[in-house]
């Protein structure tokens, strides 16, 4: 018996929730699930609120099963998961900030997204108006002789997103890093309420700009699941083509940028050329460099034209010709390897505990890839491997990206060869009353979860978007411990977590 299926018999099954089951449970079942998370028998995929309820998405990796448990929180409280399973800490803090629901016996009661500047408390719950009162944030203590603190951010030195890092260092060595995020919180889930599908898809596609395709895909698949429809075959294949182009462009950019943070600008320059080629191919094929708003519920907004095919084929040729030389350059430059090998090691047990997705998980022994499992079309019909390592350092995260670039090049070639014809978009049916849908899609950074409920009029009642960064940011704190402060940019870039996707 799997770790999820017996739980499913302990609650009331939601009638209109697809594709995986959702059940309303009581506190005792909720607690059993928390204990199983703590014991490593289940993986936490998400934890999010509604005004009167809290939901928890769970994955049984061994059985490949997914389910959502929901608990009533109309009393304004819900049993915290964090005492059993620390990865839930920030998610609980976010629920408290957004909905005002109190996680009972939570490990950390400090606010997270709410910096005291919104002029409203619990904006998605009771929305109590408040005066703006930014309170000082209590960072966790680091005690010992001759420790000093280095505050960094929210405005950073490079062209990157804002966030605050508080280092406690002994000399050069980092003793503790604590992140403070939430600076780019835009209230996307608040804007989603009552939005029509066109506007909601635009918002979803702007959750994290580098993952415009992956978010568009996850949102569209969640809508289609809720409505019980499928996009046409050609649209499904075009979506995969866009997703792999996005992965390619981001990985090229990341590989170069990581090397640049180790002061090796030659790799940066050459990878930057390949990234630009990928973006131009995307623009030629789909009319937008980041392929923003190209995926819509029901299909795709633009078809691939013959000049687009030529552009993508030229990209494949150039990448296949140039990339091997860059891999060799990376592998044979001792001064660069000296920086990346052995820095920022993430232990496999932590990656497994946090259910870290993407290259962060795959460089530390967790092979999960949503394209494989739960899997979605057209990937079961395509030939690709999911690379994995267990050394968990910056070098391993670079190599996972390198191998994934190779896989994506192969996937794009296969898709172009086998792209089916036919329509690219199907009309959406009228929503059959209130219905719920969910999707788990693999972006370049890891698995993105979208959960939503449509009201009877086809508008969004509630939409939750969970970025892979939620389970990667906390691990960066662990990976940097014992490294020198000067290696932080390098380690941070190798994780490349999204600020905007996390802060929402």
């Amino acid at each position, binding site marked *: 018996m799997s770790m999820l299926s017996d739980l499913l018999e302990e609650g009331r099954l939601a009638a209109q929730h697809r594709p995986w089951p959702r059940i309303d449970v009581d506190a005792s079942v909720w607690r059993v699930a928390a204990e199983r998370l703590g014991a490593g028998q289940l993986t936490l995929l998400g934890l999010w609120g509604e005004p009167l309820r809290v939901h928890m998405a769970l994955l049984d990796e061994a059985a490949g099963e997914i389910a959502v448990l929901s608990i009533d929180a109309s009393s304004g409280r819900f049993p915290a998961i964090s005492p059993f399973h620390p990865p839930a800490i920030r998610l609980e803090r976010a629920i408290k900030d957004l909905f005002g629901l109190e996680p009972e016996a939570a490990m950390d009661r400090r606010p997270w997204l709410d*910096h005291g*500047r*919104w*002029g*409203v408390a619990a*904006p998605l719950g009771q*929305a109590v108006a408040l005066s*703006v009162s*930014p309170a000082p944030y209590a960072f966790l203590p680091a005690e010992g002789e001759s420790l000093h603190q280095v505050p960094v951010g*929210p*405005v950073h*030195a*490079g*062209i*990157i*997103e*804002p966030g605050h890092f508080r280092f406690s260092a002994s000399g050069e060595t980092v003793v503790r890093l604590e992140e403070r995020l*939430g*600076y*780019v*919180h*835009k*209230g*996307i889930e*608040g*804007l989603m309420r009552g939005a029509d599908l066109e*506007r909601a898809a*635009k*918002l979803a596609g*702007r*959750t*994290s*700009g*580098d993952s*415009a395709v992956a978010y568009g895909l996850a949102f569209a698949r969640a809508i289609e699941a809720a409505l019980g429809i499928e996009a046409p075959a050609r649209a499904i294949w075009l979506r995969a083509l866009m997703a792999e182009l996005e992965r390619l462009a981001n990985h090229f*950019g990341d590989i170069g940028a990581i090397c640049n943070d180790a002061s090796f600008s*030659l790799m940066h*320059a*050459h990878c*930057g*050329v390949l*990234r*630009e080629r990928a*973006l131009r191919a995307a623009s030629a094929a789909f009319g937008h*460099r*980041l392929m*923003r708003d190209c995926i819509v519920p029901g299909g795709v907004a633009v078809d691939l034209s013959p000049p687009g095919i030529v552009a993508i084929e030229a990209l494949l040729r150039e990448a296949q010709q140039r990339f091997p*030389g860059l891999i060799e*350059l990376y592998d*044979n*430059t001792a001064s660069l390897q000296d920086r990346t090998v052995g820095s920022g090691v993430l232990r496999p047990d932590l990656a497994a505990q946090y259910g870290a997705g993407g290259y962060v998980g795959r460089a530390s022994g967790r092979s999960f890839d949503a394209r494989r499992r739960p899997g979605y079309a057209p990937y079961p019909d395509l030939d690709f491997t999911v690379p994995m390592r267990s050394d968990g350092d910056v070098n391993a995260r670079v190599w996972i990206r390198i191998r994934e670039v190779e896989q994506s090049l192969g996937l794009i070639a296969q898709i172009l060869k086998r792209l089916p014809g036919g329509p690219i978009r199907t009309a959406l049916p009228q929503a059959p009353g209130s219905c719920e849908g969910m999707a788990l899609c693999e972006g370049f950074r890891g698995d993105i979860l979208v959960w939503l409920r449509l009201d009877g009029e086809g508008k969004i009642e509630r939409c939750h978007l969970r970025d892979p960064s939620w389970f990667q940011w906390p691990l960066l704190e662990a990976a940097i411990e014992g490294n020198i402060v000067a290696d932080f940019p390098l380690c941070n870039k190798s994780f490349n977590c*999204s*600020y*905007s996707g996390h802060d929402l």
Partner: protein
Amino acid sequence: MRKLLFESLIQAPLTEKAPAIDDAALAELGAAFERVVRRRLGRSLSIRQVDAGSCNGCELEINALSNAFYDLERFGLRFVASPRHADVLLVTGPVTQNMREALDRTYRATPDPKWVVAVGDCARDGGVFAGSYAVAGGVGAVVPVDLHIPGCPPSPVQILQGLLALLAPERATTKA
């Protein structure tokens, strides 16, 4: 590595010709800009980028300005690490309530004379995020803006066209 470096020597550069300057940007900047910029700064500008709440799409394209195709530094434009070294603040995103103070303090840390360039549709009026409890509005809601570069995100060419307008003030006067 030597092979790669040698190849770069014998190959034609990838860098493309400068795009035409954006007329709308020139009109927005006006003549007052010319007198100060030319006198104080010559033809070189140091830019400090500030993400005040963007989705990171604009950052991707601003980063692309430094790649071999656009090569921003050939125009005398360069990104600097501190607002204290900057002439121009390049601000993206709707300004979130949580970034409002940081943006304001960055602005005040930038020495005069200074200019603010707002990049992207969100930076104009909050874009798709306008109206949220967590969003203060466009960049102009917090600091005075001298130039807008629209787009979601604007392509590197569009950003370059806008920035080059900062360096071509004599054409602004002939227009005005």
